C-alpha cells in the first residue's frame, strides 16, 4: 500500500451526522420491543389455535383461574408504571430524591408482582402438563414473567446508578429508555391478563 497521506488520518472518528430527530437508543428500544411483541405474538397464535380453533373450554372442567389475585397483581403492576413515570419526571426537573424514590418503588412493586405470580403458580392446582390449557397458561404468563425479570434487572441497574449519583436533567436517557421497556412489560401484562384470565 502506498503511504499516501495515511498518516493524516484522525485518531478519533468524525462526529456522525445525525440524520433523524429520533434518538438512536430510543429507536433501538422501540425496535426491540417490536420484536418482543412478535415473540408474544407467536405464543398468542398457539393460544388461538388451542382455545379457538380446538374449541377448548376455558378453563377446562376441574380447573379454576385465580382471577381476583391476578386482578390485584395487575393493579400493582399498573401502579408501578406511574411511579416509573414519576421518577423520570423528577429527574427532568432535577429532583434526585424523586428519581430514587420512584425507581425504588417501581422495583419493589415489580418484585411483589413476580413473587405473587410465583406463589400463585405453586397453589394454582394444575401444571404445564395438564392439557394444552395448562401449557398455554403457563407459557404465556411465564413468558411475561421472564420479561418482568428482565425489566427488574434493568430497573435494578437504573436504581443503582441513581443512588450512585448518575443521571441529571440533561442526561437521563437511561431512565427514559429503561422506563419505555417497563411500560411495555406493563401493557403486555394487561393483554395477557385480559386474554388468559378475563375472556
Amino acid at each position, binding site marked *: 500500500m502506498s503511504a499516501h497521506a495515511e498518516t*493524516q488520518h484522525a485518531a478519533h472518528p468524525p462526529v456522525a*451526522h445525525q440524520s433523524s430527530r429520533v434518538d438512536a437508543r430510543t429507536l433501538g428500544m422501540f425496535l426491540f420491543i417490536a420484536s418482543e411483541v412478535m415473540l408474544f405474538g*407467536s405464543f398468542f*397464535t398457539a393460544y388461538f389455535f388451542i382455545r379457538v380453533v380446538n374449541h377448548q373450554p376455558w378453563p377446562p372442567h376441574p380447573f379454576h383461574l385465580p382471577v381476583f389475585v391476578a386482578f390485584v397483581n395487575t393493579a400493582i403492576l399498573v401502579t408501578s408504571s406511574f411511579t416509573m413515570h414519576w421518577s423520570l419526571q423528577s429527574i427532568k426537573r432535577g429532583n434526585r430524591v424523586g428519581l430514587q424514590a420512584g425507581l425504588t418503588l417501581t422495583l419493589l412493586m415489580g418484585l411483589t408482582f413476580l413473587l405473587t405470580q410465583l406463589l400463585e403458580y405453586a397453589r394454582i392446582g394444575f401444571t404445564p402438563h395438564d392439557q394444552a390449557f395448562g401449557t398455554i397458561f403457563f407459557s404465556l404468563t411465564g413468558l411475561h414473567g421472564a420479561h418482568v425479570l428482565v425489566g427488574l434487572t434493568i430497573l435494578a441497574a437504573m436504581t443503582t446508578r441513581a443512588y450512585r449519583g448518575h443521571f441529571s436533567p440533561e442526561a437521563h436517557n437511561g431512565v427514559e429508555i429503561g422506563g419505555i421497556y417497563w411500560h411495555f412489560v406493563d401493557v403486555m401484562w394487561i393483554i395477557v391478563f385480559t386474554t388468559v384470565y378475563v375472556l
Partner: protein
Amino acid sequence: MTTATTAHDELHAGAAPPPHGWRRLLAPGWLRVPWMSALFFGIGLGITLLVRWAEGWHPIWDGQVITTIELVAVPFGFLAGIGGFDYWTRYAIGSPTQPEDHSGHGAYSWRDYFRINTDHKVIGVQYVVTTIFFFVAAGLLAMIMRAELARPGMQFVGNQVFNELFSVHAALMIFLFIIPAFAGLGNYVIPLMIGAPDMAFPRLNALSFWLLPVAGLLMLSSFFVPGFGCGWTGYAPLCSTHQELGAVFFNMGVQWAGASSIMTALNFLVTIITMRAPGMTFWRLPLLVWANFTTSLLVVIATPFIAGSQFMTMFDHIMHTNFFNYEAHGYVLGYQHIFWFYSHPAVYIMMLPGFGIASEVISTFARKPIFGYRLMALSLMAILVLGFSVWAHHMFVSGMAPWLRVPMMVTSVVIAVPTGIKVFSWLATLWEGKLNFSTPMLFALGFVSMFVIGGLSGIYLAAVPIDIHVSDTYFVVAHIHYVLFGGSLFTIFAGIYYWFPKMTGRMYDERLGKLHFWLTFIGFNATFFPMHYLGIQGMPRRVSDYAPRFADLNFFISIASFFLGASTLVFLYNMIVSWARGAPAPANPWRAHTLEWQVSSPPPVFNFDEIPQVVGGPYEYGVPGARHAVFNGDRVIEEEEVNV
C-alpha cells in the same frame, strides 16, 4: 501498515497498561473464557438442581433438562469471558464507563480478529470468514449425502445418519451461512455507504457476531449427542416427542443464531435511520442499503416467530408440555403455521440482500444508472409486506383448513410480480450498457438467470394441483437450490469478489475468479437441473435410498456435485493466496460511485476523516458532471485519482 500502528499507539496513549500475571485471567479474552464458562456451567447446574429439589421433582438429576439449561448458561459464560458484557456490567453497577473508548477499533494483526472488536469493518470480516467456514462444513455434509445417493441401496451411512446429514446441512447453510454472510457483508459496507464512522451500537454489533460461533458449534455437535434428524423445518411432533437430545441442540442453535440476526437487524435499522451523511436522503441510498433496510425489518418482525416455535417444540420435548400434543388437546398443525410464518419471510431474508448486491454490481459493471431506481426500492417494500401473507403455501398437503389454499396460492403468485419487476429492471439496466465481465459481474449475471429459473419453479409450486403432485419430491429440492444456491449464494460470491479489494486492500486473481465462476455455474446446473425431472417422476426428498429406475440420473448428479464441490477449492485458494500476496488494490478499482469506494482500500480506522456531503444519486454512471458525494475540499477524491 506502519502508519496504522501510529494511529493505534495514539489510541492507547492514556489507556491503562495491559495486565500482568494472574490478572490476565480477569481481562476480557480467551484466558477468561474457560473459567467463566465453567463458572456459568456451575451456576446453571446449581440453580437447576436447587429448583428441582425445592419443587420435589423427580429425578432431581435429569440429564436432558440439565443439558438444555447448560445450552443457555455456558454460551453466556463464553460471551461474558470473551468480553461481550464488560461495558454493560460496569454501566449497570454505576461504575465509570468510557463511552468513547476506541481501543476496540481496527485490526492490527490477525490476532485482533479473534478478540471482541467493536469496529464494523473487523466484525464484517469476522462474519464473512466464519460463515465461509460453516459453508465449507455444510458443503462437506452434502458431499457425503451425494456419495450415499450415487447408487440405490445403502452404501456408506445408515438411515438415521443420513437424516442427520441433511438436517444439519440445511440448518448450517441457512442459519450459519446465507443469513449471516449477508449480515457480514452488510456490516462491512453499510456504514461506509451511508457515510457513517461506524454502526449505531458497536458493542451490540460485536456481541451479535460472537453468538454465531456458539450457534454453529451447537448445530455441529448435534451429531455427537444422539442426533438431530428431523429436517431443518423441525416439524412437530416428529421433532418434539420422537427425537433424541440432538433436536434440542438444533432448537437452541436456532435461538442463538436468531438472537444474533435480530441484534444485527436492529443495529442496521438504527444506523440507516439515524446516521446517514448530510444529503443522503432515502431516495439517494444505494440499493444495497435499501435491501438491508427491508431485510432488517423482516428480521425484526418475523424472527421472533421461529424463536417461539423452537421454544414450544423444545418444551414439548423436554418438559412434556402439550403445545402440539393431540391427545391433550394441543394443535399439531400449529407448529407448521408458526414456523412458516417466519420461514417464508425468511426466504426473503435470504434473498433481498442479494438483490441489493446484484443491483450494485450490475449498475457498476454495466456503467449505467439502475433502471427504475425508485421502483426497485418500492418493490422491496412490496415483497416485505406480501411476504407475510403466503406462508401456508408450504402446507398445501399438510391437512390444513382447505379454504386457506386458494388465497395462499393467489398471494404466492402475486408476490412474483415485485420480484419480476426487479428482474426486468436488471435486464433494462444491462440493456446497451458497456458491460465489463469481471468476476463479480459474472456472478451477478449468473444470479439473474438462475434465479429466474428458481422463481418459475416457485410459481409452479404455488399452484395447488402441481404442488400436491410434487410436494416432498426432488422438485422442491431443485427449487430451493435454484433460489438459494443460484440466487443467494451467487450474489454472496458476487459481493465477496466485489468488495474483496476494499476489505483486504488487495486484488484477487481475476483468472481464477472467472474459472471459479464457470466451474460453479456448470457444476451447479448439472447437479440441480436434473432434480426437476426426478421430482416430477416422483422421487421423494429426504430419503437415503430410492427406486432403481432413478439410478442413472442420480449417479450423474452425484458426479456433478463432486465437481461442484471441487470448484469451491478454487475459490478458497484464490481468497487465501490473494489476501496474503495479491497485488495492492487501488481505492476504487471498479470506478464505482458509492461512498465506500471513495476512501482508501482498506478504509482508515474511522472510515472518513470528515463526513462527506452527498449531492446526488449513487448510480449516475455516464451522466456528465454527476456526482454522488463531495468531500471537504475534495481531498480524498483527488488522492484516489492519483492512486489509480
